[in-house]
């Protein structure tokens, strides 16, 4: 049945009320890395310049850039992984289907196996 995870209590955490970081792949890591990036950049800017407001601006900018940057990187890797999984699944299915037949990709083609008329 679809949506079985929804029935577990306490298993969804929605940021700003709409982004469920527990269920969306890469979202939790993106937000965590974004927070870390925000802290580092904001704190670094403050230590360098002692300007509070501008450091807060840099922190927020850092949060958004780090979060989105990691998001694109993670989703790209996830998409590649899914493609590899699909190819593997297809390959396994073909291996099972064609094993022992002339279409078997693992079968070695030797001269003696070719029929001479």
């Amino acid at each position, binding site marked *: 049945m679809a*949506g*079985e995870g929804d029935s577990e209590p306490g298993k969804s955490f929605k940021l*700003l009320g709409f982004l469920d970081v527990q269920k969306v792949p890469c*979202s939790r890591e993106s*937000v965590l890395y974004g927070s870390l990036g925000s802290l580092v950049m904001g704190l670094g800017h403050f230590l360098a310049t002692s300007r509070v407001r501008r450091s807060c601006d840099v922190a927020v900018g850092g949060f*958004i850039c780090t*979060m989105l940057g990691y*998001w694109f990187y993670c989703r790209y890797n996830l998409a590649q992984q899914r493609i590899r999984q699909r190819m593997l699944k297809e390959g396994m299915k073909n291996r099972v289907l064609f094993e022992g037949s002339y279409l078997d990709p693992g079968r070695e083609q030797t001269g003696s196996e070719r029929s001479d008329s």
Partner: protein
Amino acid sequence: MANHMQFGFQDASSPIMEELMKFHDHALMTALAICSLVLYLLTAMLTEKLSSNTVNAQEIELVWTILPAAVLIMLALPSLQILYMMDEINEPDLTLKAIGHQWYWSYEYTDFKDLLFDSYMTPTADLPLGHFRLLEVDHRVVVPMESPVRVIVTADDVLHSWAVPSLGVKTDAIPGRLNQTSFTVSRPGVFYGQCSEICGANHSFMPIVVESVPLANFESWSSLMSS
């Protein structure tokens, strides 16, 4: 089908729906970034003293032109990719006609001889134990799994809409018009949908059930139904 109080999508059962869910995640992440920025700017403006010492706004104007353009591009590119993917011509293995009536669906498998049937909702009183209220039908739409299926949707009387959320399909049924959609079911199973265009008193009581089976089972079923 959806669980009680389910707010998110149902599990994807077709490649298009998987892509739609990925795009939805991407759109929500973009929305989170925008909301964070807006919340911060709001807080900053409310805590700052009012002053009128700004005479040159060139930089800010550059920022608030380029940033929204970047956001639009970030959303438009994957969206258009999916839009064109949905309209790809993929040589369907099966064509099926879905006709909306008040208040039931009828299906015609014109690739076969005499394979057509009506699909009425199973009344609650007649529902076997464990079956879903207001979702089960007497005759399901059976399709082979992992095969592209084309559905031509139309209606006999008023507007209806043929929708199956887990397959990512929703197509309006308009009298006098043939609308086409296609899907490929990735796995065997039973997928539920409901009429999605208000069509009268029993609009909520004309569900759609698609059953995806292996090809051999589909062949047996089609032979049985044709006879």
